[in-house]
Structure formats: C-alpha cells, structure tokens
C-alpha cells in the first residue's frame, strides 16, 4: 500500500457508508445491485428517508401561513434547509436561495424572469457544446421570443471547453452566458472561476448549472464568482422535486415574479398586488415541504462525511475504473478531461448502447444508455448514444471489477 500524504483526508469506511443506503442492499435479476447511474439520480441515505417520514408523521403542516404549532415546526424545518443550503454553497445570504423543483426550473426562472424582460433582438446568449438540454432549451425559447441569438463555445475532442473561444464569444451583445459546472456526460469539471472572471470583466452575468457538481465536490459560489448557480437536490442524496437557484441579491431584487399565487405576495388588491421580497417572490404556491426537509437531511449527511473525502474517494474510483476499462478491447471512452468527476461515457466497437445497458442490467448493473439529454454533444462525437457509468462515493472497487468482467461477457455475446 502506498503512503498517503498527511494533508489528504482520511479514506472512507465504505462498508459503513453503504449501510446508510438501504437500497444498495437489494438484488436485481438475482445479483447484488451495482448502482452506477448516480448522475441520473443518487440513492438516498436512511437519514433522508427518515426525515421525510418523520415530517409526515409528526410535523406535517403548510408553511409560512399557519400560526399553530405544526405550522411553526414545518416552516422552521423548511426554512432551516434554506440556511443549510446557503452555508453549503457559501452564499452571502439565505435570501439569495430560491427553492425550485430542480435545476430545470431554476434555469427557466432565470430565462423568463431575468433574461426575457431585458433581452433585445440581435442580442446574444452564450453556452457550450457540452450543456445538458436544461441549459440549452430555455435559452432557445428566449431567443425565439426575442430575436436574440444563441452562440455555442466549442470543446476539444478530450471534452474540455476551449476557454479562449468561450471568452471570444463574450461580446458586448451578450446578455447572459451559461456553463455546466460538471458535464453529466463527460465528467469534465469546467474552470468556472476563470470563466466568471472573464464574464464579470465584460459585465455579463454567468449562470452555472451545478447539478452534477454539488454531489461530488465542495462548491463555493463566492469563490466561483458567478452570478446564478442552479442546482438539484435529488442528485445530492435528497428527494426528487427539490432544487434551488442561487443568485446575487441585486439580480433577484430586479426580477419580476415567474409564477403568481399564494406565498409570493405582500398585499393583494384587485387594483394591484405588491409582491414579496426574494426569495419568496419566486415561490408561489405550496412547495415540496417534505422534500426540502429531506434535502436538509441530505446536506447534513454530506457534511458528516465531508465533501473533501467524498471527492477523494470518487477520484480513486474514477482512476481505478478508467484504468480497468482501458483494458477492454474496442472500448472507447468519451471525455478525458484533466479535471474530471467520476462519470465515464463509453461505447464498445459496434455494440449499441442500449444493448450493452440491457445486458448489464441482466447482471444487476445499472448504467444509463442514450443521449443523456445532450443531443448536441452526441452530434459532436458523431454517435447517437453512449453508455454512461457514473460513480458515487458509496461505490467500491469490487463493483468496478464486476462491471468490467460483465462488460467482457457482454462484448463477447454481442461480438
């Protein structure tokens, strides 16, 4: 065993961590489950399941309106998650955290409430080739309605953003730039701080899609220097239907509401309504209260493990899995960025991604096959689909071994 420098975090006790996730104990098609679809959604620790369960059993009430005890408890738990999330991403203020159903809603909020009212025909929006559809389609809708143009910054064959090309696109016509923090297909970690500095110098707000970053690494929005950060809860061990938009206070302050209804008003008269301040201005209607209580538990859970240790464990798994996959004849990996999260997209010779995924499922191994909501990226690589194995800190080297052995068998079967 090689010596570990003392500044590295202590390794994880993976067996103990796996015991925290009840689903990881199940079998699929008679085999112990190997769950390698974490970029799609993560599994949930017992602490999160318990928090949701406990909320419905003991505290269920609507938030921000009832003065009775349950209402106070529900509000305090729900708003408590806002405090936790603000700390988790080092936001300057809890009031800069707008709860949404996920990243998609967060980006659409920026599209409709921030960008659409101010964008003009001939203006431009900049994104990159490696964006998820959630960071492409809302901008296309804005362009369609406003007569603005979408500009796309290219990537290299290795799957790295060409930063100078991105910066070149930041002309005075650009009203917003969007970039994914960690690519859901390639695993590439983009140099967001560098991009944010370039955008800031030109007075262009930068939106970061953080869906795949939060589950894997420490995220500090102040250090990144971006203007909007969209995130989702269900990939970071929280319930589905939870997410948030972080935005600078001055940006939120000038944004009109996106949805109207209860919860987001100060005073309603038929002559006219005054709206609540952010973040509640953007949270019309009864939210996913139990979900956000669960998200609070997920944040606590991640902090109890330590995000540095999570990142280190996943780095180890990524290196191990990449080396093992490279021994498989005919296997091509898409995305070999220097800074990369534990996401491996691949294909084997002529075998179709769906055939590979179905046959791996027969072995109890869950991977995703398809376009991963990134058609333009698939087109860039000239393939209709890839298989994607996305690992989390609760995965093991033994699971990687089983995965690679199964790929060997599948390869022969389809060969």
């Amino acid at each position, binding site marked *: 065993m090689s010596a570990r420098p003392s500044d590295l975090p202590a390794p994880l006790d993976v067996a103990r961590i796996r015991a925290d996730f009840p689903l990881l104990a199940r079998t699929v098609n008679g085999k112990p489950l190997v769950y390698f679809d974490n970029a799609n959604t993560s599994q949930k620790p017992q602490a999160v399941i318990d928090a949701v369960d406990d909320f419905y059993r003991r505290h269920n009430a609507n938030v921000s309106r009832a003065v009775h005890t349950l209402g106070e408890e529900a509000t305090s738990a729900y708003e408590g998650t806002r405090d936790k999330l603000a700390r988790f991403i080092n936001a300057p203020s809890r009031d800069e955290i707008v709860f949404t159903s996920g990243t998609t809603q967060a980006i659409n909020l920026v599209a409709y409430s921030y960008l659409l009212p101010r964008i003009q025909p001939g203006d431009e929006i900049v994104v990159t080739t490696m964006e998820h559809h959630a960071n492409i389609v809302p901008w296309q809708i804005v362009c369609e309605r406003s007569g603005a143009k979408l500009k796309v910054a290219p990537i290299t064959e290795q799957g790295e953003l060409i930063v100078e090309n991105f910066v070149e696109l930041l002309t005075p016509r650009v009203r917003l730039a969007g970039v994914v923090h960690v690519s859901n297909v390639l695993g590439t970690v983009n140099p967001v701080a560098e991009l944010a500095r370039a955008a800031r110098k030109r007075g262009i707000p930068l939106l970061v899609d953080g869906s795949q970053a939060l589950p894997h690494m420490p995220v500090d929005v102040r250090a990144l220097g971006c203007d909007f950060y969209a995130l989702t809860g269900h990939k970071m061990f929280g319930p589905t239907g939870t997410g948030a938009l972080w935005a600078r206070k001055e940006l939120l302050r000038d944004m009109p509401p996106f949805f109207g209804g209860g919860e987001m008003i100060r005073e309603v008269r038929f002559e006219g309504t005054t709206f609540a301040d952010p973040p509640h201005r953007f949270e019309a209607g009864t939210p996913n209260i139990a979900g956000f209580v669960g998200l609070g538990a997920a944040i606590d859970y991640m902090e109890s493990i330590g995000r540095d240790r999570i990142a280190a464990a996943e780095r180890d798994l990524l290196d191990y899995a990449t080396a093992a996959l490279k021994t498989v004849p005919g296997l091509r990996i898409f995305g070999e960025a220097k800074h990369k999260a534990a996401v491996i997209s691949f294909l084997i010779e002529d075998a*179709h991604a769906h*055939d590979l995924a*179905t*046959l791996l499922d027969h072995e109890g191994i869950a991977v995703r096959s398809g376009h991963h909501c990134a058609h333009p990226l698939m087109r860039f690589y000239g393939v209709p689909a890839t298989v994607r194995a996305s690992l989390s800190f609760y995965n093991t080297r033994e699971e990687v071994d089983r995965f690679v052995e199964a790929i060997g*068998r599948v390869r022969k079967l*389809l060969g």
Partner: protein
Amino acid sequence: MKPMSAANLYQQLVLDHYRHPRNRGELAGWTHAADGVNPLCGDALRIELRCADGRIVGMRFSGQACAITTATASMLSELVQGRGADDVATLHAPFGRLLNGDLGEDLSLGPLNAMRELHRHPSRRKCAELPWATLRAALAGTARVSTETA
C-alpha cells in the same frame, strides 16, 4: 463463459439474426421505401420493398440500430415475403399484444415470438416497433416515420 441470467431477450435466435442479418442492404429496383427513426435513441432504419400485384416480393433493410431492431427487421424481412399490406397489418396486431405481454405465442409470427421478452423491458419496446413502423410506412407510401409519432 458464464451464461447470462434472464438472457431470454438475447437468446440465440435473436443474436443469430443480429450477427447475421437476413436481407440487409439495398434493393435494386425497389418500388416502395421508407426511412424510420427512433428519436429516443437516434436509431435509423431504411426499408426498401419490391411489390408486384400488391404483394411484397422483396424486402431489404439498412441503417444503424441495436440488436433488437436489427433482429426484428431481419425476421420481418423473411416473414413478409409474398404478403400484401393487409397481411402485414394483420400480423402487426398480435405482435403488439405480444409486446404487451398479453399473448403467449402466435404461430403466424414465427421467429418474432422471441421478442415476447420485451414485455419485461418496456423501455426497449420501441426498438422492436421501429421496423414495423418503417415497413408499414413504406407500404402506405409515407417516406418518413418516427416511433414517437407513429
């Protein structure tokens, strides 16, 4: 080699039609043709037919597709020889029931009964539907078809 469990979908018959597809390629002098796509996975299939007196006397298919689509197209190309559009429609109905898991076996479908296992894989059903949709589009004189609009 350890046998695959639950490998009924990828049984020998299916793998044989995948590895050695029958009637793959282009058909000189085709009278009917259609291009089909499955936008969910990007698979594309082209079917060319030669029809005489309202009957299929030749079918060839080409394109890039998964094992399920390829094997279905290959099996279909043999099954429909000498049949008319009405016959194809008549065969398609039990195939749909087969994919739903509502039908044990239908002798008229021949080797296509192997696709019955797809009722356990609802996300893969469109793979087997693509050749049928493309074939029926060709017979109907429709140049393009998608499994999402068929």
